[in-house]
């Protein structure tokens, strides 16, 4: 075992330990935990079984230095994970937007229903239509 392999094994083992710890503390949702654990385990296997797995695959792909396959695999996984996150963030921001709009709506309807809306000049029409909004909203 040379230095490169030792470093690879050590670092992948650390990643695995970190993921397990995060899961244990429930800081990571299962869905992502599984993803990271599979990644960490796969990389650990690659690093451990260097002669049987890593080198032949590297050879097959025409990668001169097998450790680069490790990096390549790591990069590919991270790419997919980050892409996955971007999708999740997009969905979350859409959901957040809808929530904010709904909060605004509910607050307005609540205040209108409680008659809390101040209305000095010309507010009668607005207050009337607001009450109507609530009514229509409930029916629709």
């Amino acid at each position, binding site marked *: 075992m040379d230095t490169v392999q030792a470093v690879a094994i050590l670092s992948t083992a650390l990643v695995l330990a970190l993921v397990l710890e995060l899961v244990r503390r429930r800081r990571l949702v299962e869905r992502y935990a599984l993803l990271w654990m599979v990644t960490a385990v796969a990389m650990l296997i690659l690093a451990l079984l260097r002669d049987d797995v890593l080198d032949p695959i590297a050879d097959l792909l025409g990668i001169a230095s097998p450790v680069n396959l490790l990096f390549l695999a790591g990069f590919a996984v991270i790419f997919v994970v980050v892409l996955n996150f971007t999708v999740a963030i997009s969905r979350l921001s859409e959901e957040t937007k809808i929530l904010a709009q709904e909060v605004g709506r509910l607050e307005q309807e609540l205040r209108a229903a409680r008659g809390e*809306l101040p209305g000095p000049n010309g507010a009668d029409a607005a*207050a009337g239509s607001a009450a109507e909004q609530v009514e229509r909203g409930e029916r629709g």
Partner: protein
Amino acid sequence: MATSIDGSRLRKLAIVPAYNEAGMVGRVIRDIRRAAPDFDIVVIDDGSTDATRQEAEAEGAVVIRHPFNLGIGGAVQSGYKYALRGGYDVAVQVDGDGQHKPAHLHDLLAALQTSGEPDMVYGSRFRGDPGYQVPLGRRIGNLIFSVVLSAITRQRITDPTSGFRMTNRRGIELFARDYPHDYPEVEALLMLHAHRLRVHEVHVQMNARGFGRSSIDYPRSAYYMVKVLLALFVGLFRRRPTPVEATGEDEPGVEPPAGPPGAANGDSQAAGDPAGSPVGGGEPRAEG
């Protein structure tokens, strides 16, 4: 059209998106009241940190306040959702920074009801005198979008970034369900086109944008250009649920016959959508 639209019977809503527009929004509301008293007003306070809401409520407007800032797209959509819930027939966007002149509201309304019954009418600065000195960068950006959009929609669109727009129920239903995010005006035009809703342009003059919300400054204008062009490109291929089946056969923009008051809401929805399903199974449109 067989069913003529009685303008006075329509329920009309002015949507005023406002972000930190205290000192301005009150004047906008008063101007709308004076120029177009037949419009209800809803102010969307998009998470302002100043007295925007108090000022708007003091003027008697309905205020929907977002707990945090969503940006102009989210704010405007909130207004369209309100319009849909309230059963409004017509909704118009009037910026809370005073850029849009409420005096034009009835020009827009007249165009919405006559000029071939479009689904959306918007005020263009560039069909004549814009009313103020439009910055050069803004003009160039506008020109590029104008060329691209005109090519896509095969219709002359001179001011695609104008947010001064008035829609009928079809437009309200579409925008309440789906509205673009960051710089929505240009993309919204594309959405209308994708859903086969018709757009008509009316010349208006505008005021120079109030300094409150300069949504586009120079460092960001390049980003804006790229983002919107990308959005246009993506939008061409995006699958969107079709809220309104706008085929050529059925009569677009037909208003429900004047029935008992209160029943208008459900009726017009049924009239606009013979299939009875508001979401058309994710099929965006028949691509040629």
